[in-house]
């Protein structure tokens, strides 16, 4: 039976949530390919949550342990995954900071092409096909992967994690010899927010319409009311130093595909749209009824954000309190 290798990510010794999406993407291909799904986790010793990966569709869970694998080890991870993928039919990564670094390393080692940042996967005529946004989301490229393994990275939030219980049998995978060329010395935690805009299911973004950095507290309160939201920003406010670059959405920032994107006081410049037009539902709050953001918004409210946002926060709180 062919296997699909799903590459998991861990941080601080725990499996990252995005890995469940990777498993769901792998699971989606397993049936048409009559394949089984192996999850592989690189870590330094036991990784919390790896024993639960069967619940999300892993037939087997391969653990590759190495003392230096606590932090991301580009060369070591690449050598390990390339070794594990040798006989796989498909290799699935997350298009995260790690996945975007790791997937091309592995693809180059295997001498095969990589479809990165895909938003849809399918099997046609026994081969994997992928759809990926290109030209800043203004077109979709459909490609067929001719090599084996077919190598893809899936954009966070485009596949919903599903509970698809499988055995999740634990297997130890031996880390092959590798030459370490780069070393991740440390991870400095960002001063704000645990949830990253690229991975949050709900993103509340603010632009110049907020007038002053201190007013972002309005958006932080709204995000807190939603509970699973991150606060994003337009480039105008990042360049002004109001927010960290890590929060910037758009062509020179992050590309996000949350289920809900709320644009507050953002005009909707083409470079901003490049980063968020694949969101499932877009809400715009802007006092200018002709602002371009309303052209992509599913729902809009015209008016003063300083009156609308607090009201919205209150309504969401009420809703979630009742629920």
């Amino acid at each position, binding site marked *: 039976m062919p296997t699909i290798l799903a590459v998991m990510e861990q941080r601080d010794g725990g499996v990252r949530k995005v890995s469940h999406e990777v498993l769901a993407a792998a699971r989606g291909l397993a049936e048409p390919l009559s394949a089984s799904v192996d999850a592989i986790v690189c870590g330094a010793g036991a990784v919390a949550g790896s024993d639960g990966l069967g619940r999300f569709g892993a037939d087997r869970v391969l653990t590759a342990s190495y003392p230096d694998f606590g932090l991301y080890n580009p060369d070591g991870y*690449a050598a390990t995954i390339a070794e594990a993928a040798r006989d796989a039919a498909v290799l699935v990564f997350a298009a995260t900071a790690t996945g975007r670094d790791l997937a091309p390393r592995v693809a180059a080692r295997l001498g095969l092409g990589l479809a990165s940042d895909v938003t849809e996967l399918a099997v046609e005529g026994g081969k994997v*096909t992928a759809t990926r946004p290109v030209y800043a989301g203004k077109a979709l*490229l*459909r490609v067929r992967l001719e090599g084996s393994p077919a190598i893809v990275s899936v954009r966070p939030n485009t596949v919903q994690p599903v509970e698809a219980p499988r055995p999740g049998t634990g297997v130890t995978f031996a880390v092959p010899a590798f030459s370490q060329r780069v070393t991740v010395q440390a991870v*400095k935690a960002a001063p704000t927010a645990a949830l990253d805009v690229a991975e949050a299911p709900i993103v509340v973004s603010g632009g110049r319409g907020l007038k002053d950095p201190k007013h972002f507290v309005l958006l932080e309160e709204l995000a807190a009311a939603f509970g699973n939201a991150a606060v994003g920003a337009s480039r105008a406010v990042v360049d002004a130093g109001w927010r960290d*670059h890590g929060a910037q959405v758009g062509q*020179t920032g992050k590309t996000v595909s949350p289920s809900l994107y709320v644009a507050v006081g953002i005009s909707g410049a083409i470079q901003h749209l490049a980063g968020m037009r694949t969101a499932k539902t877009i809400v715009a709050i802007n006092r200018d009824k002709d602002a371009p953001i309303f052209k992509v918004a599913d729902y809009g409210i015209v008016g003063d954000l300083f009156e609308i946002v607090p009201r919205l926060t209150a309504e969401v709180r009420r809703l979630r309190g009742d629920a």
Partner: protein
Amino acid sequence: MRIAVCLKRVPDTTTKIVIGSDGKSIDESGVKFVPNPYDEFALEEALKQKEAAGTGEAVVYCLGGDPAQETIRTALAMGLDRGVLLQGAPPADGLEVARALAAELQGGNYDLILFGKLAVDDYNHQVGVMVAELLGLPCVTSVAHLTIANGALEAEREIEGGLEVVTCSLPAVLTCDKGLNTPRLPSLKGIMAAKKKPLEAKPASLGSGTLSVLGLLSPPERKPGQIVGEGPDAVPVLVRLLREEAKVI
């Protein structure tokens, strides 16, 4: 310090994208092309590092059609010393682009090979890393902060909710992110000087790779949105729609 920069010619992000008659590529007529924005950070970094070292050469490589000569001239006007155009149409498989670039960079004796973190047309996010792998060089991606001293470098790259601090020795490959520097604009003097700088053009050796393009499509039209209302009184309606119609909260 010997530094190479790989530069791609891409459509300006504000241009309207029209699918070509082949259904697999864009209609280039009337499209304005620019240097890939992330590659401008790479160009600037090359100049900064060369200036800091006091000596060396900064060379720009581009794989593209003949109009890419103009893109290379822009880099030369910023201050790079010479350019190499590998003539060919970049295939969809980034590994083929990487192979062609790596074949040319090999033996160039570079201390640093710089890329953008991604090309804004194909969004591949891969060519720089692949070149590093093919050349067996250390590679740090999406670099937003860089210090080089005594033949080694320390770089910071943004990850979800933090920054990774990464070290390696030179020679090395880096892919550059926003925040690394502020690209300079070419001066008038630079533009004049660029006309006389060497620009070599030769055919790229390109394979077809393992990705076949099935088609390029316009994204599905978002269903027309609605203005729910004006002012705070519209909020309850919005919340109801988000809950009952969009089912996102």
